């Protein structure tokens, strides 16, 4: 895997197109009192949830942007300390409510590593299947919402048509449509229902053509490209030093994907590519996500093949009534739709975790906003912030 170097990736991109950060007032500007502090959010139609941005604007230019978070803080890390290990999984549904399956998997993997148990192979394949379907569903929501931010109403409906079908499959698995609680410690809650794989196989080509439609409608739309390319540029070195992950860092040209770099489940046994783009701008972030959905679908196809060959059977390790891992700690990271979702658990040998730390990718990705937003036009603000794909449930936890 090729790693980043400052000169190599993205060096042919015109960085100078980005405005310099205005720090010192220009001569004579001290007299002008037109710097304005504007509040954007937490109730604003395009901050997606309860993000509040405190903006300092100079006429049309943003001088400083400070995200103010915590409006959706529910204290999951603390709550997890008061529950037994099984009970932490359902909390994870609510971190990033657009990717509950991924959260379930992260939490389960972390606890399983603490317990040092081996999950049945079939359960692992099912986990991969739901993780990739979840990624597609989450990216679809992102593209839908981004289209709305840009004033395009119709792609929203096309994205949600496909997402609804995926959610329908999840409903068939576990009965829930948003907070699934399907992946459990030691496996998954139940095996696939009858006819699930056949239905999914029928659905895959439909999804494929759905992607084509969305590409045509929104991703390659000249107006969208005109509005989103060249703004919100995050150069590779900046992306690395801010610890970005997921599509955010891949859109900056760095092929970092936990599934490839530190494979978990069976991601090294299937054939897929890491999508990167060198433009580092808002459009690249949208494009990377649209292409990642296709790669996820590739994985889904292969996983379906494998699962069809496999006989139905054990999908969950029998564990005792209460799980008591040994004293110790572990860090497990997976690639959630938004980036590297890391769980750090410390066990003191009791039935409840001593400490749980969640590395939410949205939170880390948001951290670059104060660095990127100064120097952009107010009109571009939504186009940049929207491309970060923030889920406030995960930023605040």
């Amino acid at each position, binding site marked *: 895997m090729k790693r980043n170097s400052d000169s190599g990736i993205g060096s042919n991109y015109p960085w100078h197109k980005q405005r310099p950060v205005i720090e010192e007032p220009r001569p004579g500007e001290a007299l002008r009192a037109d710097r304005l502090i504007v509040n954007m959010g937490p109730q604003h*139609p*395009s901050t997606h949830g309860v993000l509040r941005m405190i903006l300092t604007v100079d006429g049309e230019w943003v001088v400083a942007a400070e995200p103010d978070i915590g409006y959706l803080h529910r204290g999951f890390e603390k709550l997890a300390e008061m529950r037994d290990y099984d009970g932490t999984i359902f909390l994870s549904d609510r971190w990033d409510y657009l990717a509950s399956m991924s959260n379930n998997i992260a939490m389960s993997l972390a606890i399983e590593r603490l317990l040092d148990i081996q999950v049945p192979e079939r359960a692992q394949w099912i986990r991969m299947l739901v993780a990739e379907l979840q990624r597609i569903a989450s990216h679809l929501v992102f593209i839908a919402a981004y*289209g*709305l*931010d*840009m*004033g*395009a*109403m*119709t792609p*929203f*409906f*096309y994205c949600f*048509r496909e997402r609804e079908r995926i959610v329908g499959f999840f409903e068939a698995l576990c009965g829930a449509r948003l907070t699934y609680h399907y992946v459990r410690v030691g496996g998954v809650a139940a095996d696939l229902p009858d006819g699930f794989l056949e239905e999914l196989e029928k659905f895959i080509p439909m999804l494929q053509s759905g992607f084509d439609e969305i590409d045509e*409608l*929104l991703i390659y*739309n000249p*107006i*969208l490209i*005109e*509005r989103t390319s060249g703004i919100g540029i995050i150069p590779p070195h900046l992306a690395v030093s801010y610890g970005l992950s997921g599509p955010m860092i891949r859109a900056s040209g760095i092929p970092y994907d936990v599934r490839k770099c530190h494979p978990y489940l069976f991601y090294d046994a299937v054939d897929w590519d890491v999508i990167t783009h060198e433009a580092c701008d808002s459009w690249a972030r949208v494009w990377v996500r649209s292409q990642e959905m296709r790669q996820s679908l590739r994985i889904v196809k292969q996983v379906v093949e494998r699962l069809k060959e496999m006989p139905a059977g054990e999908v969950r390790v029998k564990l005792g009534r209460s799980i008591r891992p040994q004293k110790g700690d572990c860090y497990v990271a997976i690639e959630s739709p938004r980036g590297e979702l890391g769980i750090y658990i410390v066990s003191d040998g009791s039935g409840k975790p001593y400490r749980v730390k969640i590395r939410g990718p949205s939170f880390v990705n948001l951290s670059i906003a104060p660095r990127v937003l100064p120097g952009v*036009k107010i*009109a*571009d603000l*939504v*186009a940049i912030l929207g491309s970060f794909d923030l889920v406030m449930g995960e930023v605040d936890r």
Partner: protein
Amino acid sequence: MSLTQLCERLLNWTGLPVEVWVGLVVAVIIFLFMTVIVLAVVYLFRKFAGFIQLRLGPRYVGPRGVLQTVCDAVKLLAKEDIIPAEADKGIFIAAPLIVFLPAYLAYIVIPFGQPPHFQPKDLNLGILYVLAITSITVVGIITAGWASGSKWATIGGMRSGAQLISYEVPMSLAVLVPVLISGSLSMKDIAEMQGDRIWYWNAFNISYFGLAFIAFVIYMICALAETNQIPFDLPEAESELVAGYNVEYSGMRFAFFFLAEFSNLFVVCAIATTLFLGGWYAPLPFLPDDGFWSLLWFMLKTLTLVFIVLWIRSTYPRVRIDQLMEFAWKRLFPIALIDLGIVSLIVALR
């Protein structure tokens, strides 16, 4: 006593000249026509957008939901009339009228069918009159934004004003092309010059080497901007401004804005039909285009244009404010100017 006699009696009793009464009747008819057109266009738009967006659109009120927009209109009229405390009351009340009146007055010169029956009045300055009248709309919109006493409405009003005056320039230039070709400002004359052969219609007339078609396209792009449709719906950009200049308006006053907006959409398409698509004429000589047929042809062409606008509206994202201005001044304006120059040269040389 026959009806005619009754009318005559009444006329004599009032002592006013007949023209006044005819004018009043025509005014009422135009208003009703405008209302019906707007209700129909809104209903069709909702069905059409529903079709595009995998939805059903209105379904329950009346057969296939045709009465939904009527219901909405009644609801708007019955709503409580709210004037914000911060608003400048007099101007706040006047603004919807300033926006509505030009939209209404523009109907006077449009030949909806074969004149004189389907054209309220043919002015020899027809198209100039329309341009002049509709330019007042800007004042109403800015006034509405300002009078609301809200920052968002003010910004929306200013954006809208800047957009409307910017796009009026290439639009006027594009309008001048058919005027030059036919040598008249009268809507009736321009339509009659084109006649009932599709290859003589201004948009498709090859003797101007497609230059008139370019003018047609420029006109339609400007029409999108003038009627605040996506991709130029910045005054109403929901993700930025919530609803633009009319955010503080509700009930009946909002209904006036709404009526004016959709009516303007229809009017710009009707003007495009008259100027570029042969007005009320059928595309081929052997097709009937007299009497009510002419009305049918005119409506058919106009509604097709309306549908194209709505199609674009439900497909595209929105441009940014500076891109909008740049597009008007750096692209459309020079193209329209060069286009007009060449056309006038051709006309002069013939």
